[in-house]
């Protein structure tokens, strides 16, 4: 297959049909088509409205706590002995991850559209908590769909959502994980079209979600740009982020896509190893297909049945990836690496010990590829890693793998 040509301006994508090259689109049942068109129009209007942007900026600074710091990780840098490592501290946001950036944008949009009920899917519970948080803040009822398997592995998050007033509905259909939670949220949306807003948690799903979530998360990359210019006086040599659906990654990458000198690395979850067949690496281990409203790379069998993803990290445990990443991979603008469960665990421990920061097990996948990336960039170079979430939520998982009970 010939690689598609690189565009001159990445900001010009997606096209009017929601396509990044071959990827994206709106593969949804007819009942939802008028809704996604409405959403598209409402989002375009909000995006262009200075009052909406000002309101969002206000909540991001006073409620979420932005800007998040860009922190020079001196001991980690010294440990690897290569490029300077900066951490974008998204884990310091309210609720402990980048997910809230998107939730704040979408809840303001939902209210602007006159919607009175919010639904969401969640895997790790991080997006569910962020959604329940903004729903509590604005007084909207919230239903979060969560795979029954994930409800079991993320009990504290379920309780947190309950405390925030959200109803968590365990999903037992299919493989009872994130993809099934998304199916169930879509089924709810088809059934309650008149009043319900579906707040998708990643830069995935049907147009306009991938572009909208990217835009709301791009605050990460815009801040990094300003911050790194201030401290280093130049752009970074490389950016690194973990990729589940791809929202924290695209949020950091997007403002740098036109800067061809900035290398871009996404890290997918390799689970028990790429050869084991038990992983969540859609680009490295899947092929293009259609799921949840868009064309993208998917884990699937020879018949086109979707396969279950496997990762120690519930937040990366999804068989697909946002369509913009699929395209960035095909055009060669970004490189998608993988990290196994074991590598992520090692990185988790390393950052905890060297920098006094417990990273989310999701973000730990990105950390795990720093040895190679900092070596490739080399001494004197600058690497920025998106620390998408904090690891307090993962201590039980980590303890279990260490054979300890807490």
């Amino acid at each position: 297959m010939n690689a598609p040509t690189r565009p001159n301006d990445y900001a010009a994508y997606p096209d009017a049909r929601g396509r990044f090259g071959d990827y994206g689109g709106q593969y949804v049942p007819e009942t939802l088509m008028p809704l996604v068109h409405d959403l598209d129009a409402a989002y375009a209007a909000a995006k262009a409205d200075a009052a909406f942007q000002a309101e969002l900026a206000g909540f991001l600074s006073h409620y979420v706590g932005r800007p998040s710091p860009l922190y020079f990780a001196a001991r980690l840098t010294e440990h690897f002995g290569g490029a300077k490592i900066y951490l974008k501290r998204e884990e310091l946001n309210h609720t402990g991850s980048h997910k809230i950036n998107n939730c704040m944008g979408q809840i303001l949009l939902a209210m602007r559209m006159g919607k009175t009920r919010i639904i969401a899917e969640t895997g790790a519970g991080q997006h569910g908590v962020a959604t329940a948080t903004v729903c509590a803040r604005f007084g909207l009822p919230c239903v979060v769909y969560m795979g029954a398997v994930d409800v079991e592995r993320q009990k504290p998050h379920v309780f947190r959502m309950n405390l925030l007033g959200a109803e968590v509905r365990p999903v037992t259909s299919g493989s009872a994980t994130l993809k099934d939670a998304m199916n169930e949220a879509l089924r709810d949306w088809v059934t309650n079209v008149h009043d319900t807003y579906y707040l998708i948690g990643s830069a995935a799903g049907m147009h306009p979600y991938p572009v909208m979530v990217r835009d709301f998360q791009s605050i990460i990359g815009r801040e990094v740009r300003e911050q790194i210019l201030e401290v280093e006086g130049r752009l970074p040599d490389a950016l690194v982020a973990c990729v589940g659906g791809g929202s924290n990654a695209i949020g950091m990458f997007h403002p740098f896509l036109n800067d061809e000198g900035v290398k871009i690395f996404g890290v997918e979850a390799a689970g028990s190893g790429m050869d084991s067949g038990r992983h969540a690496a859609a680009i490295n281990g899947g092929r293009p297909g259609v799921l949840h409203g868009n064309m993208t790379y998917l884990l699937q069998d020879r018949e086109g049945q979707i396969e279950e993803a496997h990762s120690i990290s519930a937040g990366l445990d999804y068989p697909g990836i946002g369509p913009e990443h699929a395209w960035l991979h095909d055009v060669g603008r970004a490189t998608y690496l993988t990290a196994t469960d074991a590598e992520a665990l090692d990185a988790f421990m390393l950052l905890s010990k060297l920098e006094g920061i417990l990273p989310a097990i999701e973000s730990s996948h990105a950390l795990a590829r720093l040895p190679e990336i900092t070596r490739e960039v080399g001494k004197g170079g600058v690497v920025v890693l998106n620390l998408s979430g904090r690891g307090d939520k993962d201590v039980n998982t980590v303890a279990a793998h260490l054979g300890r009970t807490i």
Partner: protein
Amino acid sequence: MSKSRIEKRFADLKAEGRAAFVPYVMAGDPDAETALAILKGLPAAGADLIEVGFPFSDPMAEGPPIQRAAQRALSKGMTLKATLGAIAAFRAADADTPVILMGYMNPLVTWGVEAFARDAAAAGVDGLIIVDCPPEEADPLADALDAHDISLIRLATPTTDDARLQVVVRRTSGFVYYVSVAGVTGVKEADAAAVAPHVERVRKASGLPVAVGFGIKTPERAEAVARVADAVVVGSALVDEVAEAVELNEDVTGRVLSKVGALAKAVRLARRVPA
């Protein structure tokens, strides 16, 4: 040949002055052999057209009954290739009953839409309904199906306004499927009186017969809808029969076909009385 099989069937029924009864069955449910026996028995039990679902792991517009039917079929190893095989076996014995395949996009993407259209035509498929392929995304599939004279059946729903309806009916043939409730299959119940004006609207916009489905479970409801629509589709209620028969260790084929018989009879009874 294929498009005309659908057209001819609706023309004949129009002459008879009645609506079509269209059962939906899941390929390979509860196993390939039983599903084929059901398929073969449908015309004699009163099916005028047949919808055959092909299983997908993530059927986002399906309620629990059809989700479970797909899971049963997949767990027995059902494939799209075997689905076409079953339709070819059916076609060998029945040259007239139109068969509509219904399912989701990804298995077709895997097959390749052009090759699939060719193979489906060879198996004797007359129409295709792809739930997650709206008109905006349908051109490549529509081109492939056109080349083999297979109808791409479109869905209209309660959220389809008049402007949207014009988009929906473009490039469609055979009939239009009116989804009678906003929701997934097999949960809410359709209301014949509420459906009637929409059927008329869709008929006018498309110039095609209008089938109504999603939410018709009983003979009474089928009869009421048959008074206002050109075809009545029943799916979840039939796959529920499969599930129950399996559970109770009963004769699956007999049970499904007898339900089909009752529903078909109700549709025939609804024949519009000449004014």
